[in-house]
């Protein structure tokens, strides 16, 4: 009897929509119900779940087909007879095979309930439940509405359709869009291009200035040349003073000479000595220049 809840909420759309029956009876809509089915393209429904029952598209479809077999105007059908027919049909099917789509079973249950409501006198207890007649009318409404949709669908398909019965112009000329390019330029751009271009073509002779630095290579050369003459410990500053020239910065001279001296000391060409950090750095010709003994180098 969960169906009742559905009946109480006719607007509910979800889930077991098959039992959500409108509660107000439909008016008569006499139409020829028996032509509608014939025009449909005979494609099989995609819905494998529903097709189970002899190709019917759901319980409403089955009911509608049964109503047609009553060979009367759909507004004249006996709902009770229809309900009987449906219940018998479903019962037969269930005997043959158990796997019947749930939709059909839900409908069967609801129809069984409807049947009982139609056969028994309405309980005059003032309940909100719709009467058996209201339920029957609501079912009839749904059947007629479905039938009406089938009918108009076929009417629609039988209209003069574009591309089938009536045709648009085969060679529409369309609107031709003529594109014209209009070049724009402004004077500034023009002058800039000209100036840039002219200037880029000016032949210029460059003299590359010497950088005011003593390179490591130069320092090494100078040091190698000088060191032959210094057998005694000589402070580096004194050596530097011999070749520091005006345009070369002192810092650069010190740095490069120091670097070169480390290299030469490693090679044993000179020896270095420093008593403490930042104390004057002394150097003299290394052992290598006199003997080939082990080199020593100090920091």
């Amino acid at each position: 009897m969960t169906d009742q809840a559905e009946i109480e909420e006719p607007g509910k759309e979800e889930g077991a929509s098959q039992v959500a029956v409108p509660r107000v009876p439909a008016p008569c809509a006499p139409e020829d119900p028996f032509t509608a089915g014939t025009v449909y393209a005979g494609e099989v429904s995609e819905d494998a779940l529903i097709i189970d029952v002899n190709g019917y598209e759901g319980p409403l479809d089955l009911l509608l087909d049964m109503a047609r077999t009553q060979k009367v105007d759909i507004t004249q059908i006996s709902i009770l007879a229809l309900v009987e027919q449906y219940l018998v049909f479903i019962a037969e099917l269930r005997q043959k095979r158990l796997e019947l789509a749930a939709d059909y079973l839900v409908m069967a249950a609801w129809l069984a309930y409807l049947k009982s409501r139609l056969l028994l006198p309405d309980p005059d207890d003032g309940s909100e439940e719709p009467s058996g007649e209201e339920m029957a009318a609501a079912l009839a409404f749904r059947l007629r509405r479905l039938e009406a949709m089938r009918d108009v669908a076929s009417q629609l398909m039988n209209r003069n359709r574009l591309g089938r019965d009536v045709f648009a112009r085969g060679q529409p000329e369309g609107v031709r869009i003529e594109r014209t390019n209009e070049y724009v330029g402004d004077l500034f751009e023009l002058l800039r291009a000209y100036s840039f271009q002219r200037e880029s073509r000016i032949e210029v002779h460059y003299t590359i200035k010497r950088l005011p630095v003593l390179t490591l290579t130069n320092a090494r050369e100078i040091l190698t040349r000088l060191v032959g003459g210094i057998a005694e410990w000589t402070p580096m500053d004194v050596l530097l003073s011999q070749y520091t020239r005006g345009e070369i910065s002192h810092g650069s001279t010190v740095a490069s000479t120091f670097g070169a001296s480390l290299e030469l000391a490693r090679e044993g060409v000179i020896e270095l000595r420093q008593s403490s950090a930042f104390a004057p750095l002394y150097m003299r010709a290394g052992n290598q220049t006199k003997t080939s003994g082990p080199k020593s180098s100090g920091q």
Partner: protein
Amino acid sequence: MSDEQQVFSSDDVRQHVRMLEALLFAAEEPLDEVTLSARLPDGVDIIALLEALQNAYQSRGVNLVCVAGKWMFRTAEDLSFLMQEERVEEKRLSRAALETLAIIAYHQPVTRAEIEEIRGVSISKGTLDILLDAEWVRMRGRRKSPGRPVTYGSTEEFMRHFGLEALTDLPGVDELKAAGLLSNRVPANFAVPIPNASEELESDEDPLESEGDFFEEPLNDGDEQVQETKHVS
């Protein structure tokens, strides 16, 4: 520029009709009155011109028709038999698709659940796809109800294909309306809404969100999930 109706000589009017005729003949798609006016001299009475042209072609092999509020020439209906060679392979619609199309056209805006309720059966995924692909059906918006399901409606292409000037031209729509058969429920007073094709959303529709929902739509509106689960179990 000016909206005022000017006085034109009959020669002028004849020339305006010629221009209209040329424009409509050449057009690749139906043209609305605004577009047509824009290409004619200022101040012409476009409606009167269209009527004159329509009358001139009334009995000819080609007729001027208005579909979905736009004007186009097309071959006369009674000559359909002649046009077999032009006919393109017809899309064959399944019964489910046909019914769904009719329900969408007559009941729009309508949700998937409502379609299922009318047909008494769930719609398979492919059915709506076919109709959307054919450009006969479009997603209109979302119903302001729990789950905010997508609402569907018909398209201009639908109107063009079936030669409908407006949705009120749908066959039998007045009778169905009078019979209350276009109602989702059966209201006591049978005040039934006519199909609504307007671009505007109904008061109970929300616009489709342009973001986020795109990939979930059109196939997974609220009830789809339930459906899918059912199939699997």
